[in-house]
């Protein structure tokens, strides 16, 4: 899956990929103050490419847990289920339904997306990407967007969560890269110098089928140097 970190202060974005085997669960957000956690399980294509470099992976299952509310939300490309204590409500991506529960609001929009809001301080959107059911290679997958995180604590971690706090970066020495259609540059971030490549990724929140292009600086090697530690530090044993 690809990650996009928009840096409002710089009016720019940084992106990176995480390449891991299908079945791997990654920690995206963990706020130790509230316990709010978001994990995602990776899936691959139906017919994975034998070359690991060209293998495409996505998120196929996402789990949102809020222990303070005794709540677990599990989203797959087929179903969306909300567990509250011992009870569980299951919905399908064919539903359009709004669910209100103890200050949390979940809105499922048929075949498009699901919005989860915890009060007014944390809002996530999960986008369903559907492909032709009989496509020989590709399969449906999920996108995860953080729309609002201002109530989340400064200790929030995770592949996305660590970037909820303001950070600076600078880009210099822009020059043609090994791919003549793209430019490379030197990025200074978190006191590290990284070689990055100018590219773009897509934001599918508003246009769920075509997406909107987001220009970004791409960090190579699983976000090495940009993320805290290495990407394998974010592998967790299970969705919840």
């Amino acid at each position, binding site marked *: 899956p690809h990650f996009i970190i928009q840096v409002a202060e710089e009016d720019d974005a940084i992106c990176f990929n995480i390449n891991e085997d299908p079945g791997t669960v990654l920690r995206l957000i963990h706020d130790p103050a509230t316990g709010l956690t978001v994990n995602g399980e990776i899936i691959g294509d139906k017919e994975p490419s034998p070359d690991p470099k060209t293998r495409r992976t996505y998120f196929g299952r996402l789990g949102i847990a809020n222990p303070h509310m005794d709540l677990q939300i599990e989203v797959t490309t087929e179903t969306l289920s*909300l567990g509250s204590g011992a*009870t569980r*409500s299951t919905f*399908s991506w*064919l*539903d*359009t*339904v709004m669910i209100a529960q103890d200050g949390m609001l979940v809105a499922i929009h*048929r075949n498009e997306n699901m919005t989860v809001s915890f009060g007014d301080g944390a809002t996530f959107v999960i986008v369903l990407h559907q492909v032709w059911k009989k496509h020989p290679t590709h399969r449906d997958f999920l996108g995860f967007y953080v729309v609002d995180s201002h109530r989340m604590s400064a200790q929030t971690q995770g592949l996305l969560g660590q970037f909820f706090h303001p950070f600076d970066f600078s880009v210099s020495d822009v020059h043609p890269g090994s791919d003549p259609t793209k430019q490379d540059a030197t990025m200074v971030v978190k006191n590290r110098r990284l070689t990055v490549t100018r590219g773009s990724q897509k934001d599918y929140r508003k246009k769920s089928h075509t997406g909107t292009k987001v220009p970004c600086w791409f960090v190579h090697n699983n976000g090495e140097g940009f993320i805290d530690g290495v990407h394998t530090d974010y592998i967790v044993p299970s969705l919840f």
Partner: protein
Amino acid sequence: LPEGEGVVNGIEVYSTKISCKVTSRFAHNVVTTRAVNRADAAKEVSFDVALPKTAFITNFTLTIDGVTYPGNIKEKEVAKQQYEKAVSQGRTAGLVKASGRKLEKFTVSVNVAAGSKVTFELTYEELLKRRKGKYEMYLKVQPKQLVKHFEVRGTRCPVGSGSPAGSRLLCGVQAPLWDPGSPVGSRLPCGFRLPSSSRPVRSAQEAEQVHVPPRPQGHVSFKPSLEHQRSCPTCADTLLNGDFIITYDVNRESPANVQVVNGYFVHFFAPHGLPVVPKNVVFVIDISGSMAGRKIEQTRDALLKILDDIKEEDYLNFILFSTGVTTWKDTLVQATPENLQQAREFVKNINDEGMTNMNGGLMRGIGMLNEAWDGQGAARRSSIIILLTDGDANYGESRTDKIQENVRNAIGGKFPLYNLGFGNNLNYNFLERLALENHGLARRIYEDSDAHLQLQGFYEEVANPLLMGVEMEYPENAIQDLTQNNYKNFYDGSEIVVAGRLLDQDLNSFKADVKGHGAVNDLTFTEEVDVKELEKAFEEQSYIFGNYIERLWAYLTIEQLLDQRKKAQGEEKENLTAKALGLSLKYNFVTPLTSMVVTKPEDGESQTAIADKPGEEANTVTPSMAYLTNYQPPQTPYYYVDGD
């Protein structure tokens, strides 16, 4: 047929076809029988059809020697005058009368001249209701003699809502096939139940066919050959006597489905995957002397089985009423394993005694639920009160209108009351009125070996509420003539159906919201209805029968008006009656307010047949048995149908 075979008393019934077409839960059934009089003299031919009580006859025609006489719908009083005139002239009459638990019997006799042919065609329509996760179409098949071409054919026509395969037949015919080696019978995907006194069908596979093709339309047919019908290889009498049951559910991709045709819409709502709302349930049980013996035993059996199914998060209590009122516990108690064990002991010791203090029992039960209601605050719990009685109140407050008033005031619209009337010696209309007035329903429990299963079955229907306070909302300026759109509870396995009319036929789209309170959260399901797209999809399927949504709307509206009429009085009742009558006449439905009359001018004199629909009250009166007892073969053909 070989000479003489299949001819009984000079009459050969050479074809009986029952065609059942279900479109989106709305069943359209046509029963056609063709017969010929092979005798040298005029003979009488009888046409008997058992149709579901919930069905409305919509047409009946007679064709004699190629001339068809259509049925005309008339207000009951008008039809009655014609009927009485016919009876006064000494002519015989058929009957529509209650027959068993689910059926009404439609009977008509016609005198057929020597060598003449007659065709009877009866059409009836019914909205199939979903219970415990399935719809059931039920037919009683009992030809009186061998029929050369006998066929029951069921077709389920799917309807598109943007998804052509949105509905499909999940099950074929499910009925145990009689098997001499097994009292229960073996089950086949398609079967036909035969009485144990008959010998088995020699080859089940030859007798039944199930066609459920991969395409959306599904067919089921039962077409026994003469060999299959014969009671023995050399017998001329038939062994066909059974129930033909088609059960199915729809492949439900989303909880709601809206269909629009010609300015009418229907909205089906049946979510699944939601947790069960915990409930407070009070059983108010009649233990008066009339319950003695089998009824009290069956009640005990049913309650014991129900106790096995009660979930730990539920609260319950038992109120027993006879001359006095006794309770198991003073308040509702949680269904913990210990409490359930105590409850079992209590139930095992229930014995009959005394008279029937129904008002006392109900008041105690309602009071207990009210206490729990007031005490539970914002807790999400569904409250249900279930009354079981086998007779009329005869101790304490016995005036039905006063009991109604007391119950209405005590419940205050907060929770539903379900009334189970055990047997026939009770005022079922009162129980029904009482239940309908309090957002519940009444159900008759038939005195039979399976009464405990009927009781238990009813409990299962209401045991799993998934939503409370369900409201179906549509834009006010776009919809009119809406059928009931709010319900106290939605139960797992059931379905809410709301129909209405679009105010503006050129409307492009509208939004249908369903709001309800679940076990842990409040939910709003939204359906964006693209009218134009749906209309287009339905145009492509016009082969089904184009105006079925309008007829479904009319059926549902009439049914609900008749229910409202049961609990209304005075001017309100008159208005409801007028509305229901107007729609029955407009849409050709034989309801308790209308009759269908077939008139054939005969030698300058009108001959009349009438099809009626009895109400539940018909069960409490003795149906007329006078017909055919004074039969004298008339000189000219005659035919009558009457309701009891």
